[in-house]
């Protein structure tokens, strides 16, 4: 089982680039890229809150539990 990150799809839906999101949420592009590619081991609530505020979505719109 894995937690899938759907940030790419959400960015596409909002017509926003990762660089723009990085500027809005004040998180480095490198860290956002780690999150987007599913390489992150943990996500801070503050990061999730900032992304959701910038994209106008819910945490569930970005993260999805995928059973094996």
């Amino acid at each position, binding site marked *: 089982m894995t937690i899938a990150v759907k940030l790419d799809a959400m960015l596409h839906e909002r017509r926003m680039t990762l660089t723009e999101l990085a500027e809005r949420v004040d*998180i480095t592009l490198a860290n956002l890229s780690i999150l987007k590619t599913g390489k992150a*081991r*943990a996500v801070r609530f503050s990061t999730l809150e900032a992304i959701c505020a910038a994209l106008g979505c819910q945490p569930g719109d970005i993260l999805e539990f995928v059973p094996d």
Partner: protein
Amino acid sequence: MTRPISNALSIAHIGLRVLIVLNWIYGAIVLALLVGMFVAEPWTMTALGVPAPAQFAALAMGMRAIAALGLVAVPLNLALLTRLVAMVQTVGAGDPFVAANAHRLQAIAWILLGQQVLGLGIALIGKLVSTPGHALHLDAGFSPSGWLAVVLTFVLARVFAEGTRMREDLEGTV
């Protein structure tokens, strides 16, 4: 603050290198002593102040055993010192909180334990073969500070391993 730290690191590095050389010299001397006890026993024993082995066979035998145990300490010391050098190098490289150092500390704790056991063995032999006329005065035996160092190093190794794992987790946190 950077300069005193780097200076301390350089001193520690040089000090450890010197200790490694001294350990080899110590090993060579003990080996020579041990070989001498077999090859040129009368001469070696006389040089050490031990009377004819015919009269003090147990004492001579005990001294051989102590020398052999002293030789065992050489690879133990070397293993400890080389690990310490590697740890100092990681501090110098700016990244000491790595899993390898936790493993090194764990190994150092086991080596310290081995050294304490070795010391007890040497002291025991010394006590067994000593006679009122010819007592062996050895700088070995039970050392509370030595055993405390063993426990502390085991604890420190565990703390280091946990700290390293937590840092790895934090590194993957976005």
